């Protein structure tokens, strides 16, 4: 499983570039989280922090570990761990931000400010005959959303 000598450096340099991209994205995400005006736009900044600021540098760390010759065969353990963590973040980050945005929208805790179109609001305003069991959980969300 030995990587050819020249390829080591290619992996390390690509990995370090990805980590640098992650650092810059985390900085941008932090600034955005502080400076953006309302919940949904701030959520956008936060998701930049999870994908560009966590997923990308973890893949970069996996590449650096794969190119680190001195680690011997342990580099594949480190690279594998980094890739698994990255994939977990890749599927969990969007699901978490989706759940946050959905809860905020349903509880009307945040105003949808730069709004072009809001189909979800139109759907919830229209009377739907199917709503039976979900009312209890909706009420709980409303209680939790109040400041």
């Amino acid at each position: 499983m030995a990587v050819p000598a020249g390829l080591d450096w290619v992996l390390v340099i690509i990995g370090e570039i990805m980590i640098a991209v992650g650092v810059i994205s985390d900085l941008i995400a932090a600034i955005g989280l502080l400076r953006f005006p309302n919940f949904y736009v701030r959520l956008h900044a936060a998701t930049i922090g999870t994908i560009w600021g966590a997923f990308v540098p973890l893949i970069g760390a996996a590449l650096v570990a794969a190119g680190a010759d001195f680690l011997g065969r342990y580099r594949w353990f480190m690279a594998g761990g980094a890739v698994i963590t990255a994939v977990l973040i890749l599927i969990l980050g969007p699901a978490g931000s989706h759940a946050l945005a959905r809860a905020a929208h349903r509880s009307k805790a945040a105003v949808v400010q730069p709004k072009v179109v809001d189909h979800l609001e139109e759907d919830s305003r229209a009377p739907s005959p199917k709503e039976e069991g979900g009312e209890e959980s909706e009420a709980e969300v409303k209680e939790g959303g109040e400041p």
Partner: protein
Amino acid sequence: MRRAYKYAVLVAMIVSTLALALAVSAGGLGYALPFPAVRNLAYWYLRTTYNPFMPKFTASAPEAVTAIVWDYRGLDTLFETSVFFLAIIASMALMRGIEVKAPKSINLSKYGMSAIVKTVTKITVAIILAASASIALHGQLTPGGGFQGGATAAVAPLVIIVIFSLYFAVSSGIKKKSMLTLRTLGLLGIGVTSFAVIVAGLILGKAAYVFQNQPKEAAPIGFPSHILGVPMGGTLLFFNIFEFLAVAAGFTIVFLLLSVPEESVRKVLEGGEGHD
């Protein structure tokens, strides 16, 4: 005023962090090394934990922490597990009469979060269970063990309760009674493992101790140290598996009891058995 308070807190945090870093780097937490007598003890543990050349002293597990927890001070860990079990039993006694059950004929898909979150949760629950099993089963080889694995596994039912609803969890088999059975099974296994060698010694007519792992000088029988050529630490593997079951099931019972909605059990909570 509020702004000044904010900045004061920020400055205080920075100053205390810097002061702590300075104090630690200047040796403020004491000497870098403990006393020589304590160092000898640590040296002894590290030397005997996995040492095939000293078969009368070794615990035959490369992971020293697990060897100390379940072999060198195994009785202490047994009492820790008993304390945890008593705490779970006490919480169940406090909430006795509360039945965690789903109402009949409900549409489970109406409850819980959206389909996206549910799909992601299905994937992650499988990963959580696999990771927790590996933490527990590799406890004698790598950092980890039964308690850590069990606590990790208990995240899976918690996530299911939050994202799929309590009713889904109960109707898919995460019930108070079945979890109590699993927990009792785990504790029974810990008891059987700790008495296995002495019972075998009584049958074979040889001397043995309670909580014995490897053969000792005057007690020549013990658990197998290797299975298929992999060091298994004798009793440590079994203790880890049973502790894993006991801890995961115990935490799940508490999560189930705490997530019962108060309205549905108000009668039980107010003690209205005789007068209404």
